[in-house]
């Protein structure tokens, strides 16, 4: 069914168009919205686009990194300052999907997709949104908890502090098909160290709930401790707490619960 396509040069007008029409969806790279249109999703009657250059800007020069919502995974892979995010970016799709898929769109990707968002959650990112009434910044975990209600806002950018060291950020995607495939589960951890103790541990899981979630029990097991064998065991045991995975063609909920601790142990131990 034909839809109305509205293209705006600035984000304010695009956000106003989105918030005023319940059947409007923002089109970024197309990997979610065009897929829905191809499947005949009649809940979408208007497609909104914005050609604002700010949406595709990368600011990675300082300690705080900002990625415009329209930044593609291919551009992240081309950015030397974002080397710590090359693993998450490369784990998504094939080259064509990475040329199209965007950081902002990934926030809305359902299971078994949304791997980059798992990395963003572990980095405690802030999501800049523009609504009909103005702009604001939302912590990413709060954004994800209310994701179904966020379709009326325009995501402008994602920002986060750069990890203090290359070892502080870790990422692992478990897929049955290599090098490309939907996730069985996805894990990311940010483990800032003060002296020899972890301070501000963040562990994020994908495909363990309808949206990426933080493994708060595992974070508590890591917080204030050295990353030794007993700490890793405690975190691995706690990984499954608070999760609610589903069944799909890639894995059952039972299987996901069984393996999440195994893979968190490997992630924290630095095993391949």
């Amino acid at each position, binding site marked *: 069914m034909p839809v*109305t396509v509205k293209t705006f040069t600035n984000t304010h007008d695009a956000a106003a168009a989105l918030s005023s029409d319940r059947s409007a969806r923002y089109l970024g*790279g*197309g990997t979610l919205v*065009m897929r829905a249109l191809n499947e005949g999703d009649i809940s979408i009657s208007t497609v909104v686009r914005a050609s604002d250059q700010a949406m595709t800007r990368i600011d990675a020069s300082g300690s705080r990194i900002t990625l415009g919502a329209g930044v593609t995974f291919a551009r992240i892979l081309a950015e030397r300052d974002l080397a710590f995010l090359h693993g998450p970016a490369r784990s998504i799709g094939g*080259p*064509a999907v990475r040329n199209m898929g965007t950081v902002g769109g990934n926030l809305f990707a359902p299971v078994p997709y949304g791997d980059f968002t798992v990395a963003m959650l572990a980095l405690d990112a802030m999501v800049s949104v523009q609504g009909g009434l103005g702009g604001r910044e939302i912590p990413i975990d709060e954004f994800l908890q209310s994701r179904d209600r966020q379709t009326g806002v325009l995501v402008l950018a994602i920002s986060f502090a750069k990890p203090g060291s290359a070892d502080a950020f870790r990422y692992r995607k478990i897929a049955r098909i290599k090098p490309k495939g939907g996730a069985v589960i996805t894990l990311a951890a940010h483990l800032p160290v003060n002296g020899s103790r972890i301070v501000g541990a963040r562990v994020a899981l994908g495909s363990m709930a309808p949206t990426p979630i933080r493994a708060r029990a595992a974070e508590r097991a890591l917080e204030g401790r050295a990353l030794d064998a007993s700490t890793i065991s405690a975190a691995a045991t706690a990984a499954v707490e608070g999760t609610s995975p589903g069944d799909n063609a890639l894995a059952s909920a039972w299987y996901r619960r069984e393996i999440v601790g195994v893979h968190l142990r490997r992630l924290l131990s630095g095993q391949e």
Partner: protein
Amino acid sequence: MAKTPLQFSHNGRDVAIFVDGGTNLLVALRELIGDMTPKFGCGQGGCGTCSVLIDGELHLSCLTLAETIAGRSVETLDGIKDGPNLHPLQRAFADNFAAQCGYCTPGMLMAAKALLDRNPQPSRAEVVEAISGNICRCTGYEPIINAVLAAASGGRARA
């Protein structure tokens, strides 16, 4: 609903068409321009057989809103041969038995061309990565990988 006029370069030739809102590029190419080389596979971005180059970059035409390519350059498999002469990649696919049913072949060739255009001498791992978004249910991939490597080592891949 009113149609939208759309102009872009198709295999080096300027074209002008009218599209319905929400039409994807694959439908525009096949049904409005008559270029049947990109195929419809999954419509979800999972199979890669609709792959085309947009401004030299590999994209999935089924997930590309046609309106977004206004003023841009689209290259499909139909445009890579030189008159009656096959592109070196096409020749290598034939020589290495890299096509069986042939349905994935247009996407495989475009993904391989995108790779060789920027990296004329790829490693095997780079070829595997380059075609990782393209599904083939016949060949087991090995003949395709060998064909891309053969085209590269032949040094005949053109920009």
